[in-house]
């Protein structure tokens, strides 16, 4: 994969002279009373260029996107479109008409329509939905789609397709509406390794052939470096650095993102976990015997107390379903034991037995309008019985303890949604730690968390495993499992195909195991 990308990037050297299709001049956005989300932010996106925009959560990425796509208006500064001049977007419709296409993490497509219908459905000047005839739609679609290997057929219903296909359709739709500047917001956060590579190939092809300027906004530094020609780093609402991607590596980028005070933390990044001998009483941990649930075959797995085990698997591996089954959220067959006791019943019984679960989707784990304290206390309510009075003092104490122990930036009374992704995740984890010796099931621990928060959460999970808790983590990111786990099991289509320990765990090893077995599964 790497070679191909290097070859592709060779063609990008001459792009420096091309005229910008979209440029932002000194954009400033102040939210009342006095929050400066964006300060004198300038950026030039040239035709045929992939421009990476990297920044931590809260750095101003989303504000920049909102202003460039007309969702919000800047307090000062201007936006200029190539060949048009200075423009002002009163609404997203204005921006779309001027040639700005945007593909968000959540795609506003209609699952009950086909790919082609989604693309040709457009909103006209009067705000009315308008669609072409079916055959015309298919022609328009396949015309555009042939540029994208792996794009779904035009007559495929979207509800039957995966995230990558949705993303392709969203990109094709933006092109159909005449986008000359395409803004991608965290495009790889829901993609596996293969789809990610395919997306990057397609973006490169799009930039080279059609001359569309692509603004690639992400906090995955490796992705930004892999696909971009030019990278701009945003921090505290300012564009603090801008350089050719070839001249950058991850640690330089991270240093720019975190600023001067982040410097020491960059050096503290642990490259490798400390190998640890299995603890005494490891047999008393979590045991799965022939556990079979939706999308998995019968799985045997043991996680000792004090051990940290990873499940590596791409989309369709069945790992998230397995974690949910262990937590009693999914029906399953087979036997599960924790500390020698068989796990029975629903989620409540499993929490009481000592299990905890953090889903990869924080919107489904936490209640955004509720305070940190109320979210923290929620799992412990039912143990007290429906008509018992609420007792806020122990809850406040436990929440404060979590905030202090995990260095959460937030107050107990603060609404959950006002915390950054990393801090939310800390609370989601920390609320299970009221007890000693728990079995933590964690799905995608740092999904949508910035680089800074990611380090903190990894540190936390490693400590957790060290203090006699059992940790079972699923991630589609091999780097994450390397940072976290002593042992990694590779799952392909619901089947454990390989297991690696200690120093054996490496990115290429995990990816190779997952891919070769996926191909075997496909041919066999």
């Amino acid at each position: 994969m790497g070679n191909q990308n290097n070859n592709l990037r060779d063609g990008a050297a001459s792009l420096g002279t091309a005229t910008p299709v979209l440029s932002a001049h000194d954009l400033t956005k102040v939210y009342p009373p006095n929050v400066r989300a964006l300060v004198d932010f300038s950026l030039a996106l040239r035709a045929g260029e992939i421009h990476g925009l990297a920044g931590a959560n809260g750095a101003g990425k989303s504000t920049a996107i909102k202003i460039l796509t007309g969702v919000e208006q800047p307090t000062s500064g201007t936006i200029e479109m190539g060949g048009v001049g200075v423009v002002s977007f009163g609404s997203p419709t204005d921006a779309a008409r001027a040639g700005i296409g945007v593909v968000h993490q959540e795609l506003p497509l209609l699952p009950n329509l086909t790919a082609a219908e989604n693309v040709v459905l457009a909103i006209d000047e009067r705000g009315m939905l308008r669609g072409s005839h079916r055959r015309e739609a298919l022609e328009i679609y396949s015309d555009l789609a042939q540029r994208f290997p792996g794009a779904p057929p035009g007559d495929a219903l979207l509800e039957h397709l995966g995230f990558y296909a949705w993303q392709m359709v969203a990109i094709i739709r933006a092109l159909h509406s005449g986008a000359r500047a395409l803004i991608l917001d965290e495009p790889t956060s829901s993609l596996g390794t293969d789809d990610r590579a395919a997306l990057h190939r397609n973006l490169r092809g799009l930039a080279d052939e059609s001359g569309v300027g692509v603004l690639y906004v992400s906090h995955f530094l490796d992705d930004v470096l892999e696909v971009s020609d030019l990278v701009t780093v945003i921090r505290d609402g300012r564009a603090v650095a801008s350089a050719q991607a070839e001249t950058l590596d991850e640690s330089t980028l991270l240093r720019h993102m975190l600023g001067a005070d982040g410097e020491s933390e960059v050096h503290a990044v642990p490259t490798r976990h400390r190998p640890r001998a299995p603890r005494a009483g490891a047999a008393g941990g979590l045991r799965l015997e022939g556990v079979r649930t939706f999308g998995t075959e019968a799985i045997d797995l043991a996680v000792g107390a004090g051990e940290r085990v990873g499940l590596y698997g791409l989309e369709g591996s069945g790992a998230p379903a397995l974690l949910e089954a262990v937590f009693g959220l999914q029906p399953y067959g087979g036997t599960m034991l924790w500390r020698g006791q068989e796990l029975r019943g629903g989620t409540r019984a499993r929490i009481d037995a000592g299990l905890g679960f953090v889903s990869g989707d924080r919107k489904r784990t936490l209640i955004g309008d509720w305070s940190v304290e109320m979210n923290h206390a929620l799992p412990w309510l039912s143990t007290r019985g429906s008509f018992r009075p609420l007792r806020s003092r122990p809850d406040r104490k436990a929440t404060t303890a979590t905030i202090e122990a995990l260095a959460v930036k937030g107050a107990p009374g603060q609404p959950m949604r006002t915390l950054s992704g990393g801090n939310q995740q800390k609370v989601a984890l920390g609320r299970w730690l009221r007890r000693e010796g728990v079995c933590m099931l964690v799905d995608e621990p740092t999904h949508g968390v910035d680089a800074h928060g990611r380090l903190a959460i990894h540190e936390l999970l490693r400590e957790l495993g060290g203090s006699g808790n059992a940790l079972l983590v699923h991630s589609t990111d091999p780097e994450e499992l390397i940072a976290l786990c002593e042992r990694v099991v590779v799952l392909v289509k619901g089947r454990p195909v390989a297991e690696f320990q200690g120093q054996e765990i490496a990115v290429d090893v995990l990816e190779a195991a997952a891919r070769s077995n996926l191909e075997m599964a496909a041919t066999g």
Partner: protein
Amino acid sequence: MKSLPQTVVGDLQDFVNRHLHKYAVALVLLVICIYLSITTNTFLTTMNITNVLLQVSMIGIIAMGMTILLVSGNFDLSVGGIVALVGVVGAKSINSSGLVAGILIAVAFGLVLGAVNGVIVTRLGVNSLMATLGSGLAYSGLALLVSNSSPIAVEGSGLRDLVKAELLGIQMPILVFAAAIAAAAWFLHFTVGGREVYAVGANPDAARYAGVPINRVRFLPFVITGGLCSLASLILVGQLNTALPEAASTWALQVIAAVVVGGVSIAGGKGTVFMGVVGVLLIGVVNNGFNLENLDTNYQSIFTGAIIVAAVAIDTYLSRRAALATSRVMSSDRDLNPRPIDGEPAAPSVGLTRSSGPP
């Protein structure tokens, strides 16, 4: 120096934005009360106030259950049917087994009818709107069947005497209303079960992931509402000393309208007992005002209808502002906030916004 007052004003604005929506309807109620006190000399009299409270008491008692039910994310359109059926069965039971046994049977029967709704919704997975629309029709039909479609007179005056009884000069229906308010407020705001009702209404997934028994939490409010319906039904029967099989046919919508006007969200997870009470009182005071001002009663429905729509529209507007103000004050990072898609304003509630990603 110059920026200081501006910050203070900004903070004040944010504070108002964040908290105004909770008390907006109460303010409207207060303004209407003040207006009526000034323009009429009959409004602010003990007799008139008692009158208003008596008129709203039955709707109000049921509204306390409906508040809990709406917060849990469900509806009950069958309350009218429950009132009618419990009334008929209660009257027959009093006639056959005496006052105390009859009252106990009526209350138990109300709880059972509520439980039937709860089972249909939580076990069979039927949407509560359709489930209770259906069960309500069935309950009304049963009331007609059991009574042979004719009123059933209660023998003796025991029930009527009980309903007309006074304690410290306050009539029984108002006392029961007050007790229902206290019980609902205690349950919803001070117990574990109440907190779980909010969790299930706001974000069922998050509740499930935290081990909240969501079916049990959804079931209980139906039973509570059924029980409160039977109390309201006994008051209705006692006032006339007769059970009418066709009584209360419009109550479901009246109760829901009152609660929603008060500011309880029909989307679940939001609202307080205070809001429910304010909504009930607002509807009662408006009706009373029309009578006192001698206005054509035909305008009454039009005006009430307008209030319902306006209340919900204002509430939506204010809670959106509140959500914005909160996120502005707290941080610039709004990770859990729903992402605006194509310029659609972000919905104020997080748990209810589904992403439109692939399944």
